[in-house]
């Protein structure tokens, strides 16, 4: 079924009786060409691009819970390509270009809204670093705009310019950045993959790998064994647990990132705003809630919940830059488990086991990467060679020293 304004009108006039299922609920087959573990954003987009770009449709996506129940359903919905390093920036810019055509491509309104993202600048050193980053973005074909405090004041008069502990000296905009309706991204990919013949299988938990003589032949699941020519892990947040079943130790720790939403409000914020002297970033959803977050809790955990100190730290950051939100109420908080990698950057790579592939380590930047991650992973799975924008996202980079450490925090995952 093709979605359109006309279809909505027609159904409205005829009692909304003609809508059909967005995706099938297939039973798993005994064997596939490719089995993708994880029906989150990245797994679904991998399946979608495998089918659409590489013509591979004998593919199953195995999801332990419900579609999009991982971090695609528990993030702060920001999309951007404002990275610094050559190992990252071309990849995220590729992702941004895919975002820009996503809805027309998938025939699903994921509410990709290029409302801009702003990083506030509070010190000269920070400005120097942002200029370096902005220029890297330009060199990779992205956009960036440096503004001073006076310009900001015109555009965002509600920020605290007069009384701030860390005065705002300017900001770096990426106007093409913004937000997308996170769940709808998963649904759009699921529907697109399903309609091309991919089996998207919910409530199917992988419980083990069939590995013989250094080769992965398939997986054990809660619904029986499934053979596959290639098995693709795509379970960021649970990478440690799943990879352990294949006997792998990863350069990853699992941490929780909390996110928050306020009660619904009439239009308050135009785009995404990021505090530069504390942990706080915020945007407003189309429903009106302020969606905001900050730093990870900082200790290893697989629990999808966090603790109070970070809640307070985030709200302090919010009040520090925009004291007009004091009377907005925090409505709901939730936690997502992140694959925090050793240099803050992800992996899209083969493993040392033949036929077993790995996608993970997204830290808390996985949402914006969803399209490119799927595309590049599909490329790797289909051609057995990395996509040109993802050549450095290798598992062996800590052995060679080819680090992708955007923040320069070193091998301590909770600092990235």
């Amino acid at each position, binding site marked *: 079924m093709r979605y359109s304004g006309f279809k909505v009108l027609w159904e409205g006039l005829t009692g909304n009786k003609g809508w059909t299922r967005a995706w099938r609920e297939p039973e798993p087959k005994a064997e596939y060409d490719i089995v993708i573990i994880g029906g989150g954003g990245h797994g679904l987009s991998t399946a979608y691009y495998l089918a659409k770009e590489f013509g591979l449709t004998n593919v199953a996506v195995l999801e332990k819970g419900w579609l999009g129940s991982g971090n695609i359903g528990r993030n702060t919905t920001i999309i951007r390509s404002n990275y610094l390093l050559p190992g990252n920036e071309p990849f995220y810019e590729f992702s941004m270009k895919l975002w820009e055509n996503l809805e027309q491509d998938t025939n699903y309104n994921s509410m990709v809204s290029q409302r801009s993202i702003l990083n506030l600048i509070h010190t000269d050193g920070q400005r120097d670093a942002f200029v370096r980053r902005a220029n890297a973005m330009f060199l990779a074909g992205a956009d960036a705009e440096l503004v001073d405090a006076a310009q900001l004041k015109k555009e965002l008069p509600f920020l605290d310019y007069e009384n701030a502990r860390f005065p705002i000296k300017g900001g770096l905009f990426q106007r093409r950045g913004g937000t997308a309706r996170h769940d709808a991204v998963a649904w759009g990919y699921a529907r697109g993959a399903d309609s091309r013949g991919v089996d998207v299988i919910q409530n199917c938990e992988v419980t083990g790998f069939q590995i013989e003589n250094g080769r992965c032949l398939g997986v054990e699941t809660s619904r029986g064994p499934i053979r596959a020519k290639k098995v693709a892990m795509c379970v960021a947040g649970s990478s*440690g*647990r799943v990879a*352990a079943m294949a006997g792998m*130790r*990863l*350069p*990853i*720790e*699992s941490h929780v990132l909390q996110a928050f939403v306020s009660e619904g409000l009439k239009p308050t914020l135009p785009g995404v705003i990021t505090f530069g002297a504390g942990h706080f970033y915020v945007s407003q959803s189309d429903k009106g809630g302020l969606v905001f977050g900050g730093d990870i809790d*900082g*200790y*290893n*955990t*697989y*629990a999808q919940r966090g*603790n109070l*100190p970070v809640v307070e730290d985030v709200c302090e950051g919010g009040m520090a830059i925009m004291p007009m939100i004091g009377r907005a109420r925090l409505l709901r908080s939730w936690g997502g488990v992140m694959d925090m990698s*050793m240099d803050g950057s992800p992996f899209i790579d083969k493993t040392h086991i033949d036929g077993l592939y790995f996608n993970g380590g997204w830290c808390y930047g996985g949402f914006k990467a969803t399209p490119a991650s799927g595309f590049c992973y599909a490329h790797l799975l289909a051609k057995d060679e990395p996509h040109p924008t993802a050549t450095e996202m290798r598992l062996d980079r*800590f*052995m060679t020293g080819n680090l992708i450490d955007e923040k320069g925090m070193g*091998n*301590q*995952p*909770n600092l990235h």
Partner: protein
Amino acid sequence: MIIDHPLLGPRDAAEFVYLGDAALIDRPDWQADDAMEQFHSYGYLRDNPAGQHQELWYHEQGDRSWLVVTRNTVTHEITAVELARDVARKRGRGK
């Protein structure tokens, strides 16, 4: 969270700074033949278990002790807290 400090009693985890897996105590021999491989594994690879986890916390806003805390990463239940110095000695570290 609350960490029951072996010397000072229960303290809010907000007084502490987290480092990570207590395996970081087991720093390899820099002169070993495979020192690079060992340091790669020490510096970068983690068990990252879903369950019991021995981990290092530093009582920065307290007595400056490094502690080894045994905590469940699924429930957050803490079952043991030891001074890291004692643990390090038990694991054979000296000068």
